[in-house]
């Protein structure tokens, strides 16, 4: 394919990407654009040209070691998700837009730390981008000239420069649509996801092509390779040192998946919902797995076909070209281009945010910005970012043009990983250890970098660029312990892992020791507590932050307007006032408002600048560490107090309902007692009325015939007796109820007692023509109080007499005994007991509702007395509810008293 045609193809492809990104920006809410799979695929920005071309090179040169870069993320996927949740939680609360912001905020908005992290990222990314450009340039050359590029092209084509510029335009346009860098870049991410699909598809196509078209499947490749290649070296882990090297490589790639700015950008900043994580946990490892299925076969195939003199990095292009399949080479080239574009765009967007928010604005522009107008500020900030995108790409291009190191893609990629890994201690430990300080973090990172330079970069330079071997072989100043590849005598690691080991060792050591020796200031401690207790921070929001001092709402509002615009600032203020019910008239800003404003500004200008902006208008007073620690503790306490309050309240509710029930019961009792007293009063008054009336008549009538006088006098006597009975009944009942009465127990015949009771009422029954039968199977001898039990039976019989119809009334008494108890039933053919009264009739103060027109003989508490007596004998009395007509009252007496 000619150069012009290839360039035209590249531009068409870029045009399509522009359109896709535009489409996504315009259809932000749509199902397709916001689908969780888009997020998962955008994570595959991890697979850059380094993966696309470099893994094959690595596999051809040193065997399965290339796998470690992908095993890290695959093995650690579950852990990755857990950690990512916490990182995302914090980042969303604080509007964090980059890893530099994340680390800087964790250590108290430290400006210098943010800048240092930014520099580390730049140092890691720029060579990495240049590596991508190198890949573009070289593959462009291979595909356009169809040369086999055996010696490895070093031609800097003009086209590379233009492609780089177009990438910069793309990234700066879509990367800075919103001022708030923590907001999503939907267009970029959607096109990245699209490219992820493309690069995987094309890579799989070439894999299938090599394995199944050029060769006859995997077995064929393996058999042929085993005949002519030293497969042992290429397919095994070499003993202990190999194992350790594997281990370190996996750790390195695991760290990279969090710390690489483009990964932070795609996984954290662009995160929008939980579903995305659920999808990613399986899709991302699967993606990496698929990407590696054919790597080893392409590598072996390449070695078999092209020999070990060809540049193994480009086997995927060279094999199709060797067989004359240009179309496939072009497809592979486009796949590689996709990998490059997505990596470069996302990386530069991330880097530009960091450069502007953590380096340029806080160190240079902050003063200008505080004087500027809001629309102008927004423009300035966006322009700074755009400039940064261009600068990073141009720097990368220059790096590539100047050094173009004659080394494989894989090695440069590893340097990138090594540098970025220096952020690990500050990043990871800081999230779980509240003591970690900014000083420890800074010194640790710098120390780590120094060791990378000494153990990797300098020897790399002396070995590969100037071919000065003495440094590596003899050590620094000829001291053997200072051999750069075997520092302090550790010589079992390969150079990369050796550098990783020592740099992280000193980095972590310095971080831990300095953090312990010298406590950070209160800001660091406050944010430390907040990051460690991220779950709580999400709940507490602004309340988690301690701030003491004096600031005016107006001043802070001015700053917000300046950086967010009038409309957004007003809206934010309204949200704040509503959330905390703050009086709009309040002139002084409190800690919550300070924290709230800082968070808003962090999204726009980064955490360090946000802090500077706020501190310009606020007189801050130092807060003691104790106060910082207290706030989270107090809030913890509040939670537990709330919990116990809630429990108490549950208990109270339960208690209340119990009390209500008891109260209802008491009220009922009270009502019954009132009714009872009413009845008692009524019943007492009736004979008294009679006595009084009769006496009055007698007193007034001297002329009354003697016979009539006698009748009145008899009436008086009768009523007096009635009164006496009534009063005795009441006293009896009270006596029994209070347990002061004692039974006169004697072993005697219950049959006789019942017979006596029946005899007692027989004259009344006879008058009313009521039939009374007594039916028993045997004579029952038990211990009981005769006088009391006859009272019970008489009472029950009298009740029946009152209810049965005259003339054909019938009362039946049954007596049955078993080994345990004696059961007496008194059954009548009266009107029966209403269902609702069955339980109530034995209540002490109960009187039937029908009281107004059913005046019972006696006092109406006869049944209550019966119940007392039966219970004193250890028995029970109840009304049978399962009968159709009449009433049946049952008395159960135990044979042996308990």
């Amino acid at each position, binding site marked *: 394919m000619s150069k012009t045609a290839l360039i035209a193809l590249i531009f068409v492809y870029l045009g399509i990407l522009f359109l896709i990104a535009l489409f996504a920006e315009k259809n932000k809410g749509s199902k397709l654009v916001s689908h969780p799979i888009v997020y998962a695929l955008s994570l595959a920005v991890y697979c850059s040209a380094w993966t696309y071309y470099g893994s094959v090179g690595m596999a051809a040169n040193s065997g399965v070691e290339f796998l470690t870069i992908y095993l890290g993320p695959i093995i650690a996927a579950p852990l990755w998700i857990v950690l990512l949740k916490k990182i995302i939680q914090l980042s969303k609360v604080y509007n964090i837009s980059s890893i530099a912001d994340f680390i800087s905020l964790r250590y108290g908005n430290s400006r210098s730390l943010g800048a240092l992290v930014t520099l580390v990222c730049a140092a890691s990314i720029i060579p990495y981008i240049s590596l991508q450009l190198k890949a573009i340039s070289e593959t462009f050359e291979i595909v356009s000239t169809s040369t086999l590029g055996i010696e490895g092209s070093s031609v800097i084509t003009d086209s590379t420069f233009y492609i780089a510029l177009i990438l910069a335009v793309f990234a700066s346009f879509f990367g800075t649509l919103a001022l708030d860098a923590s907001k999503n870049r939907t267009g970029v991410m959607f096109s990245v996801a699209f490219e992820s699909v493309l690069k995987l598809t094309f890579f799989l196509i070439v894999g299938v092509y090599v394995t199944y078209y050029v060769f006859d499947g995997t077995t064929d490749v393996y058999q042929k390779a085993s005949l002519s290649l030293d497969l042992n070296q290429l397919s095994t882990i070499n003993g202990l040192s190999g194992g350790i090297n594997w281990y370190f490589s996996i750790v390195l790639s695991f760290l990279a998946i969090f710390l690489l700015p483009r990964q932070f950008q795609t996984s954290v900043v662009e995160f929008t919902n939980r579903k995305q994580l659920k999808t990613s946990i399986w899709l991302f490892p699967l993606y990496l797995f698929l990407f590696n299925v054919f790597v080893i076969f392409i590598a072996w195939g390449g070695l078999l076909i092209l020999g070990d003199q060809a540049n193994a990095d480009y086997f995927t292009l060279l094999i199709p070209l060797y067989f004359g399949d240009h179309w496939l080479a072009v497809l592979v080239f486009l796949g590689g281009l996709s990998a490059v574009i997505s990596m470069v765009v996302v990386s530069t967007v991330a880097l530009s945010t960091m450069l502007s928010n953590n380096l340029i604005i806080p160190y240079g522009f902050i003063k200008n910005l505080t004087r500027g107008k809001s629309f102008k500020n927004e423009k300035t900030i966006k322009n700074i970012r755009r400039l940064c995108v261009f600068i990073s790409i141009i720097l990368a291009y220059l790096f590539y043009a100047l050094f173009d190191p004659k080394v494989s893609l894989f090695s440069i990629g590893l340097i990138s990983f090594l540098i970025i890994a220096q952020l690990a201690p500050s990043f990871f430990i800081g999230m779980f250890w509240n003591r970690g300080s900014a000083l420890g973090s800074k010194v640790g990172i710098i120390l780590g970098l120094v060791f990378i330079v000494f153990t990797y970069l300098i020897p790399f330079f002396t070995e590969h660029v100037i071919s000065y071997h003495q440094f590596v072989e003899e050590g620094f100043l000829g001291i053997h312990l200072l051999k750069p590849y075997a520092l302090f005598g550790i010589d079992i690691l390969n150079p990369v892992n050796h550098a990783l080991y020592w740099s992280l060792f000193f980095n972590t050591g310095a971080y831990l020791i300095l953090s312990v020796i010298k406590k950070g200031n209160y800001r660091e401690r406050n944010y430390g507590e907040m990051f460690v207790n991220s779950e709580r921070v999400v709940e507490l929001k602004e309340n988690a932050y301690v701030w003491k001092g004096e600031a005016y709402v107006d001043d802070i509002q001015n700053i917000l307007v300046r950086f967010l615009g009038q409309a957004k600032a007003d809206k934010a203020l309204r949200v704040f006032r509503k959330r905390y019910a703050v009086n709009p008239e309040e002139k002084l800003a409190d800690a919550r408002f300070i924290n709230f404003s800082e968070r808003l500004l962090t999204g726009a200008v980064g955490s360090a600048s946000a802090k500077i902006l706020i501190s310009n208008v606020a007189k801050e007073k130092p807060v003691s560490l104790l106060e910082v620690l207290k706030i989270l503790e107090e809030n913890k306490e509040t939670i537990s107090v709330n919990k116990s309050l809630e429990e108490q309240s549950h208990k109270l509710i339960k208690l209340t309902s119990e009390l209500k029930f008891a109260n209802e019961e008491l009220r009922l009792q009270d009502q019954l007692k009132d009714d009872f007293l009413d009845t008692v009063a009524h019943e007492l008054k*009736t004979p008294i*009325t*009679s006595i*009084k009336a009769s006496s009055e008549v007698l007193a007034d*009538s001297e002329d009354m015939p003697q016979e009539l006088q006698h009748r009145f006098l008899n009436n008086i006597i009768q009523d007096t007796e009635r009164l006496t009975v009534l009063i005795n009944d009441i006293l009896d009942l009270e006596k029994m109820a209070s347990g002061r009465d004692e039974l006169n127990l004697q072993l005697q015949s219950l049959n006789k007692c019942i017979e006596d009771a029946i005899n007692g009422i027989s004259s009344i029954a006879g008058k009313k023509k009521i039939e009374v039968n007594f039916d028993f199977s045997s004579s029952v001898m038990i211990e009981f109080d005769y006088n009391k039990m006859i009272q019970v039976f008489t009472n029950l019989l009298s009740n029946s007499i009152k209810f049965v119809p005259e003339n054909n009334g019938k009362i039946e008494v049954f007596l049955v005994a078993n080994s345990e108890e004696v059961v007496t039933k008194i059954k009548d053919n009266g009107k029966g007991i209403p269902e609702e009264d069955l339980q109530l009739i034995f209540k002490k103060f109960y009187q039937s509702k029908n009281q*107004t027109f059913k*005046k019972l003989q006696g006092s109406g508490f006869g049944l209550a007395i019966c119940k007392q007596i039966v219970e004193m004998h250890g028995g029970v009395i109840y009304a049978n509810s399962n009968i159709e007509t009449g009433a049946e009252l049952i008395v159960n007496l135990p044979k042996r008293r308990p």
Partner: protein
Amino acid sequence: MKKILLVDDEPNIIMALEYSLRKNNYDTFIARDGEEAIELAEKLKPDLVVLDIMMPKVDGYEVLEFLKSHDTLKDNTQTIIISAKQKQSDVEKGLNLGAKEYIKKPFSMKKLLSIVNELLTLKK
């Protein structure tokens, strides 16, 4: 002679009332429950009913309601309640149902007689 219907389920009280009222030249009739009272009232058209409240079958209030709703009785028959029910609510209920007086038991025979006399004299 004025006709007075005595309604109470307590025979001893009825006996004393009957004796006193007859001695004062009233014609007395006796009902032992509400049902009987209604029957007799309709038949006899008494000038006065002396009425107990708590009685079997039909109570005094129901008798009052009957009297109040009866075409001829409502204007011509007056009622006095004699009851042991003593709550204010009971008294009000009785008076609202058209009773002229509510006399609580135990009552004074002299006072009852003077009220009866007063009511029946006024009626003339």
